[in-house]
């Protein structure tokens, strides 16, 4: 299977071509219900994660909400 390399929070990982953001996160055992996601410096709305595919050399960061004050 063809694989591409992407960066997730600074770690290089391999994913199959045409993997959605959602599938990639699930494969990495990330809790989808507690994070926001940024790809290439831009927020990707959560409702689109199942449709948007990872691209080679994507730089993806995930982080939780900070609610304190």
């Amino acid at each position, binding site marked *: 299977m063809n694989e591409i390399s992407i960066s997730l929070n600074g770690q290089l990982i391999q994913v199959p071509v045409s993997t959605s953001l959602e599938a990639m996160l699930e494969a990495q055992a990330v*809790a989808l219900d507690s994070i926001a996601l940024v790809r290439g410096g*831009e927020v*990707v*709305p959560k*409702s689109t994660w199942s449709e948007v595919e990872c691209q080679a050399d994507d730089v993806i960061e995930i982080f*939780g*909400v900070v*609610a*304190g*004050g």
Partner: protein
Amino acid sequence: MALDDKAFIQYSRQIMLPEVGEQGQQKLMQASVAIVGVGGLGQLCAQYLSAAGVGRLTLIDDDRVELSNLPRQMLFGQADCGQYKASVAAGRLKTGDCQVREKRVRLDDSNAQALLFNADLVLDCSDNFATRHSVNRACVALKKRHVVASAAQFSGQLMAFDLNEAPQLGCYHCLFPQELKVSESCSTIGVLGPMVGCMASMQSLLAIKLLLGLPGLGLLNRFDGLTGEMQRLKLRRDPDCAVCSAKETAVEVAQETASGDKNE
């Protein structure tokens, strides 16, 4: 209306900036800002904005001062413990030119629109996710500009939304949908005073910039207090956002869902 001599001297260091000038100072003096939460963030924003000459502040908080607040809420002292934060803060800040109103209530969906209706700008300085969503829903419904800051441990976040000027940025719910799980707040995990102070200072600066009509929209700023790094990320609207994208019915559904959660 020109500034009088005292105002001109008092605000001279601001007026000196070409981005402010006498006109900008007058904009600040005519502005009305609502501050939701008078804790670590809100008490500092209230001080900065009143000192900058903002005309009217509304301080919204139903909490009372506690001993454990004092390391990051320096407007308050030990003698204030047990008093309402909104009242203590209003009492201290009223002495200047700024008109300060206190609202000793907890903002929720039932009162948010009434509380924020008269504000030119809303600062979300609250300390929990549910209140942040109530503030957002009201700001979307009223089309209010809205600056959000938060801090916990060594993480801080800062962003601004304006559905009139920048609908493509969406709203708070586009970035952090209300279903998201949140584990922390300042009451359950630690934070240092200056960490909250950094975020409150940046929130105050952004608020003043927006009141002056300077650019400041579009980015989510993430500050890491341990490394000192600031990340600037582009916000983007969620086309399917239950709060800002669609019709009024979607907003109502979101409000019902939120009030349902609260009753559980």
